[in-house]
């Protein structure tokens, strides 16, 4: 992504501007109060939510009521639970109806154990939904070629995984992320597998536009405090990226005998 002017550090996805580079998921929290507290502490402006059929007890709490009332928060339905493109497309359309926003996170993981995203179903769902006017944010394996294919069919951003959902293995896909970042024309948001704020900072330092965290906050000792820590880490990572990190060690050591003596002759 092109660097912006020094004052503004907003990023743009699907034509919408955001200043926060931390996205939050709302799953796995012990209760609504904690979840809402964490989301607010994170400063996230894009928050993913899921769709479920209403249970037998029609008086279930509306976990998301308070979030819905917050200004500046965009709820983004997640198609998680869908096992193929047509289920994801259906879920996306329901989500759009409920949220009234065109944002959708396409998440299709057929295997319920490792939860790795299906590249083929994801591509198909993204293609159909982008053509239908959705702002498509696909959760995807960190594959540079798949990234270009998803760009080509009209996705608004890319959401490559850092490591498997809930694994907490951080930026295991760092090298692939670098390749994706180099040639990306749309924002790159690392999603899944982050465990610590330092990992989120590292993703931003590397040049990613944003990160999405869920388990790392929900399953931490104090989710509200952790959400705040992530928010500060994301800002730090972003500032570091713009400032330019100092060089890694060993960059200027001479390893072999001279290679450039052929130039010392007075060449034309």
């Amino acid at each position, binding site marked *: 992504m*092109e*660097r912006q002017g020094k004052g503004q550090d907003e990023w743009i996805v699907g034509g919408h501007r955001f200043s926060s580079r931390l996205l939050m998921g709302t799953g796995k929290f012990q209760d609504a109060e904690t979840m809402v507290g964490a989301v607010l502490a994170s400063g996230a402006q894009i928050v993913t939510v899921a769709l479920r059929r209403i249970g037998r007890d029609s008086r279930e709490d509306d976990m998301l009521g308070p979030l819905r009332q917050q200004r500046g928060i965009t709820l983004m339905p997640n198609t998680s639970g869908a096992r193929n493109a047509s289920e994801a497309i259906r879920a996306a359309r329901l989500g759009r109806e409920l949220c009234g926003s065109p944002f959708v996170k396409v998440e299709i993981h057929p295997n319920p154990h490792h939860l790795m995203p299906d590249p083929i179903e994801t591509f198909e769902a993204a293609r159909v939904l982008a053509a239908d006017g959705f702002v498509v944010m696909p959760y995807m394996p960190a594959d540079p*070629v798949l990234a*270009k294919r998803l760009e080509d069919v009209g996705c608004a951003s890319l959401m490559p995984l850092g490591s498997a959902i809930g694994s907490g293995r951080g930026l295991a896909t760092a090298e692939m992320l*670098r390749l994706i*970042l*180099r*040639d*990306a*024309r749309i924002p790159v948001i690392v999603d899944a597998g982050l465990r610590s704020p330092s990992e989120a900072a590292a993703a931003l330092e*590397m*040049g990613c536009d944003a990160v999405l965290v869920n388990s790392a906050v929900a399953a931490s000792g104090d989710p509200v405090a952790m959400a705040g820590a992530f928010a500060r880490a994301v800002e730090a990572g972003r500032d570091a990226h713009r400032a*330019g*990190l*100092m*060089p*890694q*060690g060993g*960059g*200027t*050591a*001479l*390893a*072999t005998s*001279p*290679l*450039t003596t*052929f*130039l010392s*002759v007075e*060449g*034309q």
Partner: protein
Amino acid sequence: MTARLPSWLDPSPELDGRESTTADVERALGCDAPGPRELAALLSPAAHPFMEVMAQRARALTQRHFGRTISMYAPLYLANYCTNGCAYCGFASDRVQPRRRLELSEAGEELEMLKEMGFEEVLLLTGERSSHAGFDYLLECVSLAAQRFHAVGIEAFPMTTREYALLAEAGCSGVTLYQETYDPRQYDRLHRWGPKKDYLERLDAPARAMEAGIRTVGLGVLLGLSDPVFDALCLLRHAAHLQRNHWKSGITLSFPRLRPQAGNFAAMFPVDEAGLARLVFAVRIVLPDVPLLLSTRERPEFRDGMAGLGISKMSAGSRTSVGGYGEAEPTTDGQFQVGDKRSVPEFCSMLRNRGLEPVFKNWDSVFRDAEAGGHG
């Protein structure tokens, strides 16, 4: 009428306008994702003391991405008719010299000679589109060459997407088109008349070739025409733009240096050997996986030194007059004077002595789709 630099090409937003320091050079050398800022640092005066470090880094990166090999190709000038008035070129329309084109049978003979010399990749060159050597003629020559060579490239004139698609179908796998200089004012001044005066038409042609399914596009600047740092930064921006928007195609880069030829055009911004070497090292460091070319313009010792130090693709035994491989005496003047006149076996022997393997064939055309070059 001077063109304006398109925003995607303009490197200035990526730079902070101040002179690079030693710290900037070190930062550039340690950077994981180097861009224009880093290239500018590596080409600045502050980088001069780092020449040897850059050479070693360039060699390591070239070995990583290309192995200990040099890709070999041969240029074949099909015709030297030209309607352009480029101040620096031996083929300019106001230079009096014999003009001719190879008839198809002659081209066939020249191609046979190149095959016998061991080449599997040929680059077909012409001047500007003309009634003597226009698109149809080039298409016929490409079809002919594609029957015998595994990789056929052209270096001719800007074309439409449709024309590039037809060439791709006929077996053209590469299009080379140097912008010469990205500075619009210099470009306007140097291209005195003819179709080549159109800066934007030329600039956008490589993208059209990629859109049409041409597998590889060759970009380059002619060192000596303008500030080489500015041209290098624009070249980097051009390459990044194409890679971002046409992910299925590849690029190569080349930095021919103005050399003496008929007409003796003096370079306004002369680049010496050290300058060219530094540019190759810097570009290799910033673009580790892009093939970098060096032609026979340069003297043998320089080519020997640079092979594998960033440079990954070279020609040898080249003739720069029309045809020339089958004849004892050239029938036209060359586009430029050849600096390295060694034969292919001599050149390959040098490479092997330096631990490099000359590679003539990188891909077999028998794998090509029936509908070659489709944008699938």
